[in-house]
């Protein structure tokens, strides 16, 4: 994975973590789209691209090149888990970190999502302001463990 080192920092001593800038939000409920993208954009200052379906996400992911994908699990048509499988086959998103959003919070379901190649599972309802912090924490932890 590409990292942005700070100019002038010597010999990989401080490898800065890749900054989180672009988030792809895949969510079929238009109201949750509004609330979540507003929080991520206005609060987090991220560039957010919203997709209303798995198909849309698969089509635009390679072009948008997200740093992180927020993926709703329950969607009509292709669900979040299948979407993830397809995204993994696209070279541009083969290793893009994914966080699931879900209203199914039974432990058995959550365990199933965790088994897939995802960073975390965030349960609905969430506080959008807290979501920004949660995502930042997950992002930092992800990079600290990966490097």
């Amino acid at each position: 994975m590409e990292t942005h080192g700070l100019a002038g920092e010597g010999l990989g001593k401080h490898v800065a973590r890749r900054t989180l800038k672009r988030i792809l939000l895949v969510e079929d409920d238009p109201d949750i789209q509004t609330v979540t993208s507003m929080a991520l954009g206005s609060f987090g200052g991220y560039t957010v691209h919203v997709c209303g379906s798995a198909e849309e996400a698969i089509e635009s992911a390679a072009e948008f090149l997200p740093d992180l994908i927020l993926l709703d699990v329950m969607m009509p048509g292709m669900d979040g888990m299948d979407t993830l499988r397809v995204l993994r086959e696209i070279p541009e998103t083969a290793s893009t970190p994914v966080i699931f959003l879900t209203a199914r919070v039974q432990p058995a379901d959550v365990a199933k999502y965790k088994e897939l190649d995802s960073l975390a599972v965030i349960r609905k309802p969430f506080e959008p302001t807290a979501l920004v912090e949660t995502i930042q924490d997950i992002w930092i932890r992800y990079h600290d463990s990966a490097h």
Partner: protein
Amino acid sequence: MNPALEELSNQYPSALREYCNGGGEAALLRAYQLGRGAVAAGVSALEVGTVHQEALVSALVETLALAESAPIARRATEFFAECLAPFELTRRGFQEAHAALRDLNQGLERRLSAALQDFESAQDELLEQKRMETLKNDFISVISHEVRTPLTSIHGALNLLKSGLGGELNPQGQRLLDAAYRNSQRLVRLVNDLLDLQRIESGTMTFNLRPVDLRSLLEQAIEASQAHAGPLGIKLVLQGAPTGARVRVDSDRMMQVMTNLLSNAAKFSPRGETVVVEASRHNSGLRVGVTDRGPGVPEEFHERIFQKFAQAASSDRGGSGLGLSITKAIVEHMSGRVGFQSEPGRTTFYFDLPEWRRTVSRGKASENTWPAGR
């Protein structure tokens, strides 16, 4: 004893038992011949009758293993008096005896089949109960999921408005927003509590048990509840906790327990008061108490306080009456117990947990030696 009587006493019961077990006329005839033989050898009718009566009672009670031996014995006595007195005398007596015995047997069969039916319908009822239980659990998880989706946008929108995303509101608008936000929070909590309750009742709640430091757990819990207590004008303080004391619990569930107790204490405290959390060694375990200076729990409510949905008539402070029932279930699942002491101006809700006493050998996790958790 007359040898003929002795022989009768030895053989008659087995002949009769055979009859009771479905031996039919052949068995009855054997019994009859035993009786006749005894009479011919000088045993009196009364003696034959007594042997028969005793054998009949024990055979019926034993063979059919019915609890109601008293009515059977009574009927056997009547039976003897009415039908068997002329037993050794006439063929007619024999026939009557046979008919009476058959009636008695049929009566027993009827009773047995009635008992069987009762058993079957009890079993059906149990199945029906199980079906309802499954239905209820499915219903709750579907509802929980269906409610979560709209709640995500409602609660999310209110949260963003409150954080100032829509710009400054006038004081009236702010009050409306606060009310909407507070109640949407309450709804979120209700949905979570209902699901927790369902998980507890269906035994699917998971517990990730690990030894943790009690003091730091309490500090964290107080910290987390501060945001909720602050606006109510309530101060939360940790007054004491034995240093180094550890408990083996699921920390998330423990936080839930503490949040419930602290939210109750803060809710029922007069404004400006302090809620005190205190941990101490008690008997052989650890006791954590949360004390408030509120009006206390009304006497007549003591018995019901830990039941789900129970709220004292006097408390109109929101909530749904689930907090304490969940608290109790969680604590008991971690081998603890909950209780309270209450008088006006001083109420303590507490829970006791066993102290975790393994010493940690340096660098090694102590839970290795504990039976697998969860």
